[in-house]
């Protein structure tokens, strides 16, 4: 091996190690948080209220990571993420309830999650094909529109199951014409009830790790490079032969599928499901996690989702004022994190500190 090659290999090794470390830190962070929270739970040092939001926090973390794939890495603003969560929740819930005791619990839940992700991914792809031609705010409003459409249409879906098969109606559960032994599964605006409550905090964290595995490995691969180059400069990406639309669609589809997985986790947590939960406010909430945590910053998404989900519960003592404080904190955090004046101020303060960090060159 000659000198040049040695030198090149050294540089490559450094870059690779940095990348590996970056990926590993994220896993370690999630596992550490899990260990701490589990510790608190087993020692009984955690309030019931907080215990109740453990699984939802996992749901939001998955949703935030997956939305970050679209917003941060593909560079498109999507306001319809809740729609995909909704699809995942309903299809998985339908499956679990339809199968009932026909399969062992764990296996049924596993299949339900796969089904939720699969359907959400398919719908994501079908929506993405026409929609990803649009840009910027137009794309945002159309994704919002699709999210609302999904919710609205599910509101008039009635489905049931009996020995003759699956019945479907858009009017009422009476119109399903079920046999006497048949069961109603989806009841329009009432949604689905009595879904088996299979979700646990541990399963939630496992799904978070699965999401991380998929998203991080995707980003650090050929496809991820194509996705990010399209984000940074579409015209240049085309000029080097990258099929831009295909990779945008891929990011969108994977993101939708992961959101579907989050939805499945959600559905099997409380056991009751209706569409009103999955309105645009939910989409926006997830977007808030992504932006507040730093666009394209996965660890940031995770932390923002955890903090902002826990915050309203922590503020519960302040009763009526909690949402007010939440809103003020949100605005303050945005100004602090994004306003150029605030950033310059932080930079000055950092320089004055004796152990101030130097600006990082590579993230």
């Amino acid at each position, binding site marked *: 091996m000659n000198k040049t090659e040695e030198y090149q290999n050294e540089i490559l090794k450094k870059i690779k190690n940095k990348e590996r470390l970056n990926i590993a830190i994220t896993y370690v962070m999630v596992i550490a948080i899990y260990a701490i929270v589990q510790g608190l739970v087993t020692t009984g040092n955690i309030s019931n209220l907080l215990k109740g939001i453990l699984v939802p926090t996992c749901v939001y973390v998955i949703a935030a990571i997956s939305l970050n794939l679209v917003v941060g890495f593909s560079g498109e603003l999507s306001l319809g993420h809740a729609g995909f969560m909704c699809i995942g929740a309903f299809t998985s819930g339908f499956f679990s309830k339809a199968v009932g005791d026909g399969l062992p619990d764990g296996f049924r839940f596993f299949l339900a999650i796969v089904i939720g992700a699969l359907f959400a991914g398919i719908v994501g792809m079908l929506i993405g094909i026409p929609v990803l*031609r649009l840009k910027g705010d137009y794309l945002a409003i159309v994704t919002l529109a699709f999210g609302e459409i999904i919710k609205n249409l599910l509101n008039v879906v009635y489905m049931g199951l009996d020995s003759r098969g699956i019945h479907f109606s858009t009017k009422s559960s009476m119109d399903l014409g079920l046999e006497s032994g048949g069961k109603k599964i989806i009841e329009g605006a009432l949604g689905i009830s009595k879904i088996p409550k299979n979700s646990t905090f541990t399963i939630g964290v496992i799904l978070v790790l699965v999401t991380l595995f998929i998203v991080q490995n995707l980003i650090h691969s050929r496809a991820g490079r194509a996705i990010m180059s399209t984000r940074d400069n579409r015209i240049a990406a085309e000029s080097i032969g990258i099929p831009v639309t295909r990779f945008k669609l891929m990011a969108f589809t994977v993101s939708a599928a992961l959101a579907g997985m989050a939805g499945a986790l959600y559905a099997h947590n409380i056991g009751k499901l209706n569409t009103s939960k999955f309105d645009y406010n939910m989409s926006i909430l997830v977007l808030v996690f992504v932006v507040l945590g730093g666009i394209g910053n996965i660890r940031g998404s995770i932390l923002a989702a955890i903090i902002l989900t826990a915050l309203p519960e922590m503020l519960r003592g302040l009763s009526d004022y909690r949402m007010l404080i939440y*809103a*003020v904190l*949100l605005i303050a955090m945005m100004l602090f994190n*994004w306003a150029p004046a605030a950033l310059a101020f932080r930079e000055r303060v950092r320089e004055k500190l004796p152990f101030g960090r130097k600006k990082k060159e590579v993230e």
Partner: protein
Amino acid sequence: MNFSTFMSFVSYLKDGISLGAVYAIIALGYTMVYGIAKMLNFAHGDVIMVGAYISLTMMTKTGAPPVVALLVAIVGCTLLGVTIEFVAYRPLRKASSPLAVLITAIGVSYLLQNLALKIFGAGPESIRDEQKIISGSPVVLFNGQLAISRITILIVICIIIIMCALTWFVNRTRRGHAMLAVSEDRDAAQLMGVNVNGTISLTFAIGSALAAVAGVLLFSAYPSLTPYTGSMPGIKAFVAAVFGGIGSIPGAMIGGILLGIIENLAKAYIPSGSQVSDAIVFAVLIFVLLIRPAGLFGKNIQEKV
């Protein structure tokens, strides 16, 4: 089609225009702010709600007549809009991502909703007939086959006046020209001596004043007010603005009215229409955007290589 089914169609159409005209007033505010400040002001819908609460409070607490209450609401919302812009949006105008100000706007929206919740309670508040901006029996046409309420007539007159006034303002006055310049190219406008900050403040003032008008009209036409009342009309107006081509004044008006008509006709004529009318509105929007990616009246700008 016989005469009475035709008249019922006309009646639905009329209700659609009435609702759509309110959307149009809100959409005008959205579209001006978007065109000039280049941001989606998600809190715009909540300013409507604030406007309605101010006018209601004026009437119940001070016994002011509806017109005075409306004027106070306009002043209040104008101040509110300018303050929001100054405190929450202006510091982020040069932020590295346009999403920053979008999320902040969402924060402002939460803030307004929860302030209203704290002050006025969860509601819903209603309104007495004499507190409406206009009251009295409806105008009856075709031997009672078609009744047009006075508020509908007022709303339509309002949108026409507002439309004419805005068009005149933008095209014929110095400040209007400054707005056009800022919307075209902010930096170039700045170099040419246009007061960009002042122009954007003015835009927010106008948009918020319109929101106050829309709030009072909406509350008079649909008398049920909660802290979340502004949210859905806000979203719909946003859709209307995009529909018409965001940034375009006639686009916002036509988009708003079409949206109102589609929504009302869908409710009337489609099975389970009241549940899926929103879905239909959104589906039409998507359809229009796929054919005309910049909306009905929007300019399609291509990136220069």
